[in-house]
């Protein structure tokens, strides 16, 4: 899957699940989602479950954190690393 496709899938999921009604352009790729408290802890877990299922890999315990989940950019980068 191309980077742009991964990005589109992740963006669509976050908009639909956690920001219904938001202008898609307001969700920038570097917006801090976890540290900016856009996503709470339960929402973060749902993102993890979604990424695992959608892209067919498993997070290790230490990988579930802001370093990989705080923005769309970080999520896309992490998915690509795991898929490599």
């Amino acid at each position, binding site marked *: 899957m191309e980077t742009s496709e991964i990005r589109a899938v992740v963006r669509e999921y976050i908009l639909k699940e956690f920001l219904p*009604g938001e202008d898609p352009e307001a969700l920038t790729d570097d917006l801090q989602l976890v540290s900016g*408290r856009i996503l709470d*802890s*339960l929402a973060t877990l749902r993102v993890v479950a979604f990424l695992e299922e959608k892209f067919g890999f498993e997070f290790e315990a230490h990988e579930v954190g802001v370093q990989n989940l705080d923005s769309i950019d970080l999520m896309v980068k992490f998915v690509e690393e795991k898929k490599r």
Partner: protein
Amino acid sequence: MQLLWQYLSASAKRRPDHKAIEDPGRGEIAYAALDALTDRIRDRLRALGVTPGDRVGLCLRKSIDSVAVIFGAQKCGAVHVPVDSTGPGERIAYIFRDCAVRVAVVERERAEELRALLPEQTALLVLDLSDADPSADLPIVRALDLAGAAPSTGASHPSNPDDLAYILYTSGSTGLPKGVMLTQRNACVFVDWCSDTFAPRDDDRFSSHAPFHFDLSVLDIYLPLKHGATLVLISEQVGKDPVGMAALIAERRLTCWYSAPSILSLLCQFGHLERRDYSSLRLILFAGEVFPVRYLRELMGLIPAPRYWNLYGPTETNVCTAYEIPKSFPEDRTDPFPIGQACAHYAARVVDTDGRNVPRGSEGELWIGGSGVMQGYWNLPERNADVFRVDEGGATWYRTGDVVIDPGDGEFIFRGRRDRMVKKRGYRIELGEIESGLIRHPSVREAAVIATTDADGGVRIRAFLGAGEEKLSIIKLKQFCAEHLLAYMIPDEFTVLPTLPKTSTDKTDYQALKAIP
């Protein structure tokens, strides 16, 4: 009657070298050392002007230090007031001002902000909790040493059991939190009931999952320390992470677990419980909300050995009814389990709107009377007059606002609320408090909040905002909420409308809002 701090001192005499508290990754402390440390904190607080009956505020993340400060405050006869240290500064400062704390013990990160928000006469004792080096002294020890505290000389205050022990602030419908006042006796009769019911052993290892401003922590802190057992702290970070939590329970060989059901549901769904050994667990307690039977069944399948208990009670009474979940129940059961019978130190009535007992099998409001009921809300006489009722026989009853039914066997079944309070992840939330927070947004003209239940039985908070022609960014709204509301109060969903629907009397039409998909 033994007071709360005397539990610790008695255990320190009996088992001085036994581990009292473990803070995984950050340190541990034995009974004698903890008792001596709390003496030094008592002396330090006295030196800062604290006298019996004074309030001491705690804005600290969970740590050995925060437990020690709680006992240190009690040893000088003070009333401790724990708050959510991750909450908005203005909320914390409101609470500390409302009950006029003499000293606020705060972590370094919040010190500057709170100093600016608190009156000058409130003294601050600042702890640097950022240092996670387990080999270093505890932050409280460093703070005491920096202040040049002399070795302990004084004696602890021989409180009367009817003196206040602590004030727990809960969500208030007016937008301002209200302080529930609880005495030493209120807490001790509950802890004693736990002793009789759960028979703790001195080799037990208890979880401390709930934050200290949440009433579940009363059992967590005092029950193990009374019995000379070990308290294992679950940090806020690990407490939200089911994988880390599942690992900790297994690796630290916990024997007793207590949390809100939603935490246990999370462990079930995301904790990979099948991968580890949980044979040390002998007791799993939950309280604060309804446990969806689907996840309870799954959990009991994965961890079958322990006894499971559903505990019920508002902060005003702590646990007042309890129900032990049977070892097996029909596969197709979906009805939540009862909240159970009144605990031994309580009496319960189910009444109609005129305060008359309803016949068995009918719904009514649950009233609770007994030695565990709070003294009232801090500085809210009108609210107190409303929640307490004295019957013809002179007995005082606390009106819980919860609607229950006694099907005939005395095991109460919870049916809902009379008012607009909901429980989310065990925390109680007055929807009015969220509305008051939202209306402070400069572009929001009207705000209405409703709670719905999702497919898994969890609560979803939906906010409806009237903003005229203005277009509001959901992201910006969430950021605004993060600054003005506690994390669990932030709505899950926002709907922005030009104006909110109205009833014929021009009030917000909540029924119409509920119909909006």
